[in-house]
């Protein structure tokens, strides 16, 4: 299950080698490397401002990298924009999803790439509804009615529809920007399940999150960023959930915080106060 790549014949789908990005005099990213293989999930973890969004924007073609190399299918590229990334099968699902709440699921699903038929180039509504329904079912997404407005879906369902849409439109590499961050535990679970499902279909998934508890169960590789640099790359076999959590929170910093918080009630509050929780 956790074999560290037994001499793979095919080059990785995406690979970043020591990439860096500078905005004016701000170094947003410095010397970060990562690998994404088909059928695997690479998790990018980090706190706010760690450089996660800069990295995915380079991968998605929104920004060009200033140093290092970005390889797609083993050959170095410099993407001209998100459209070019899409043409290479790199799809990005951003937090805000690019879906229209008032429009139905099937209209959203095909927005911008509507199937047409006949001499009048009519929008093939029957096909759009059927395909949307099939694709969602294929991803195991249980939506009762593709006619309902996207606004009536829960956050997790919306993420799932966006993922299914990217998969349908030929994504080989799927970049998910904080898909679980705004969700409750149950909804996040639903989205994680769809990430696993996309992986099982042979896609490579880059999963950006600041929650190691979401990343660990589904990830094959982990990249931890802090203040624009890499804190380390790990295969799942090489790291435990606790180590990942501790690393992400800045190890010593977290220990210090734990220490500080643990002493707080004893110092200010009455000693007789009931314990706030039984952890």
């Amino acid at each position, binding site marked *: 299950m956790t074999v560290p790549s037994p001499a793979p014949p095919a080059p990785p789908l995406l690979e970043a080698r020591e990439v860096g990005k500078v905005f004016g005099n701000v170094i947003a990213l410095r010397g970060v490397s990562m690998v994404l293989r088909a059928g695997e999930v690479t998790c990018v973890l980090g706190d706010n401002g760690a450089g996660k969004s800069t990295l995915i924007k380079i991968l998605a073609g929104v920004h060009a990298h200033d140093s290092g190399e970005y390889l797609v299918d083993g050959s170095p590229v410099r993407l001209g924009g998100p459209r070019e990334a899409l043409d290479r099968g790199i799809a990005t699902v951003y937090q805000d999803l690019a879906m229209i709440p*008032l*429009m139905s699921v099937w*209209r959203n699903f095909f927005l911008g790439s509507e199937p*047409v038929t006949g001499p009048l*180039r*009519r929008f093939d509504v029957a096909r759009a509804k059927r395909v949307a329904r099939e694709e969602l079912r294929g991803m195991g997404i249980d939506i009762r009615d593709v006619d309902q407005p996207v606004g009536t879906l829960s956050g997790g369902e919306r993420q799932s529809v966006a993922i299914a849409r990217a998969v349908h439109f030929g994504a080989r590499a799927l970049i998910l920007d904080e898909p679980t961050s705004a969700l409750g535990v149950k909804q996040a679970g639903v989205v994680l399940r769809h990430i696993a499902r996309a992986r099982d279909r042979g896609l490579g998934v880059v999963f950006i999150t600041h929650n190691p508890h979401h990343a660990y169960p589904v990830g094959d590789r982990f990249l931890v960023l802090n203040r624009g640099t890499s804190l380390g790359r790990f295969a799942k076999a090489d790291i435990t959930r606790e180590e990942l959590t501790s690393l992400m929170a800045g190890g010593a910093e977290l220990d210090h915080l734990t220490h500080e918080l643990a002493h707080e009630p004893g110092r200010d509050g009455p000693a007789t106060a009931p314990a706030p929780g039984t952890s």
Partner: protein
Amino acid sequence: MTSVPADERLAGAGVLRRLLVRPELGSVVGALAVFAFFSSRSAVFRSADGVANWLDPASTLGIMAVAIALLMIGGEFDLSAGVLTGTTGLVMVTLATRFGWNVWLAMLAGLVPALAIGFLNGLLVVRTRLPSFIVTLGTFLMLQGLNLGLTKAITGTVQVSGLRRAEGYEGARAVLAGSVTAGGVDFRVAIFWWLAVTALATWVLMRTRAGNWIFAIGGDERAARAVGVPAARVKIGLFMTTATAAWLVGSITALRFGSVQAGTGIGQEFIYIIAAVIGGCLLTGGYGSAVGASIGALIFGMADKGIVFAGWDADWFKFFLGAMLLLATLANSLVRRYAEEARR
């Protein structure tokens, strides 16, 4: 995941929701109520002659309301649409009567400034990102001044007349402003144009890529752009569509009366918007229907003539108008909240 009874309950809510979120629902209920009310007051109102009578004002208003509805679904307003019906009519009648153009040719010539103004409105809105309310308020006032100034400069009065004597008038009138007799009752041809425009707009909205894009740019323009919808082109196209509708209505009105007042269409722009809103269009865009806008226009036609048939003072029309608008927007906002409400 959920138990079977819970799923069935949700499915039931889904059907109810689908019925309730039809944008036309409010206007259909309103139209039935208005029809029932005036029918009970006046026998003429519900007779075939009466129907033909109130379908007449509904038709030209309906053509405009449908075009405005498309634009509003796309998230924009056009306040210049009303006065543009005057502009196109004035161009047509002036060319035909002062310069001796054939009426058909003069009519086609009227389409040129209409499309240019529509394009300009659209371009200004897209490029400056100013609210279309302000941009088209500007063009509205400018056109109002132009209509009056040029008409006075050319004719010395505030109207251009004499179209009836122009070459090709009878033919053009028969096609656009004549009547069709069915069952001994004269129905205006404009009613059929109205139906055709409504059908075409509905088809575009529901069954073409452009329709999907119109809903999308009105619903969330940024998101629509992100998936490759050519938002600027769609918007400019919508403004040009409104202008084309204004040209059609301007031509119909000019052919019908044989003359055009310089002030034609002023004040109508809000009636179009009100009809579209009664028909379920949201002021914020992204939602609405062409059929609804047509039914909104129908309500207007019925109220306009119904008040006369009932023997009331026509002043009450405005009161009625305001009340309808308030009720419709209230119903729409409730529907929208229901449709957008996230399921927990």
